C-alpha cells in the first residue's frame, strides 16, 4: 500500500506547515500566533519523522528476530527539538503575560496604537 504513497505525505505536511505560517502572520492575537508557531513546529517534526521511515521497517529497538529498522537518527534530532520547542513556547507565553501586564491587551494592533499614543 505504501508504494503508491510517493510524495503525498510531504505535501500534507507542507499544508500543515503553511496553515501554521498563515496563523503566525495573519492573526493579531499573540496567543493565537504562538499556537500557529506550535503547529508549524510540529509539522517540521512530522517532516523529519516521515523521512526516517523505511518501508517494512520497525521501531529501532534491536532484536535478533528483526531485519529492517527505521532510521533512528531523525528520531533523536526531533526528541531534542520537541524539548527545545517547549522552552521557546514557555518563554513566548511568559512574554505574552508580561505584555498583557504592561499594555492590558494582547492584540497586536491595539499594542501598536498604544505605542503611537505614547510617542505623540
Amino acid at each position, binding site marked *: 500500500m505504501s508504494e503508491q504513497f*510517493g510524495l503525498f505525505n510531504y505535501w500534507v505536511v507542507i499544508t500543515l506547515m503553511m496553515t501554521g505560517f498563515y496563523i503566525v502572520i495573519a492573526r493579531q492575537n499573540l496567543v493565537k500566533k504562538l499556537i500557529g508557531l506550535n503547529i508549524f513546529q510540529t509539522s517540521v517534526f512530522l517532516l523529519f519523522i516521515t523521512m526516517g521511515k523505511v518501508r517494512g521497517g*520497525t521501531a529501532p529497538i534491536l532484536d535478533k528476530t528483526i531485519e529492517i529498522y527505521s532510521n533512528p537518527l531523525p528520531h533523536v534530532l526531533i526528541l531534542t527539538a520537541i524539548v527545545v520547542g517547549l522552552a521557546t513556547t514557555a518563554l513566548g507565553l511568559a512574554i505574552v503575560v508580561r505584555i498583557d501586564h504592561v499594555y492590558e491587551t494582547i492584540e497586536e494592533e491595539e499594542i501598536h496604537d498604544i505605542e503611537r499614543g505614547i510617542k505623540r
Partner: protein
Amino acid sequence: MIDIAVLLMLAFTAIAISRLRNLFAAVMLAGLYSLLSACWMTALDAVDVAFTEAAVGAGVSTVLMLITLAVTARREKVAKFSLPAFFVVLVTGGFLIYGTLDMPDWGDPEAPVHQHVAPRYLNDSYAEIGVPNVVTSVLASYRGYDTLGETVVIFTAGLGVMLLLRWRKEEKGS
C-alpha cells in the same frame, strides 16, 4: 489507511484552529493536534518521539497556554481574512512542494538519509553501548553533548520565564 486518515484529521484540525476565534477552543484543538501527530509518529515507528510529543506537546504546552489564557484574554478580538498573508503562504507552499519533487519516495530504503551514519548506529551500537533501544543510545551516549546543550537551553528558558514574571508593583505603567 491509518496514515491517510490521521493526516486528513491533522489537516482539518489545523484549518479549524486557524478559523476559530475562541482561544480556549483553539488551545484544546492544538492539544488534539499534538496528540494526532503523536499517533502518526507511532505509525511511522518513532515510538520515543511519539511518547515525548504526547507528554510535552499535548500535555505541558496545553497547560502552559491555558494558564496564559486564564491571566490574559479568552477571545480573539479581530480575525479577518488577510489576502496578502494568504498569497505569501500560497507562494511559499508552492516553492516547498516544488522542492519535494526531487525527494525520494516515502519509505524508500535507498534514500540518502538512510545511507550515511544510521547503519553504523544500527549495526554497532549494541556492541558499543549495550542498550537495545538505538534512539536511547544515540541520544544519551553518541550525542550526549547535544543533550547537555538541550538541558542548558531548558535552563535558560526557565531562567527567562522566572525573570519575566517577577515584576514589582512600581513597574506598572512604566
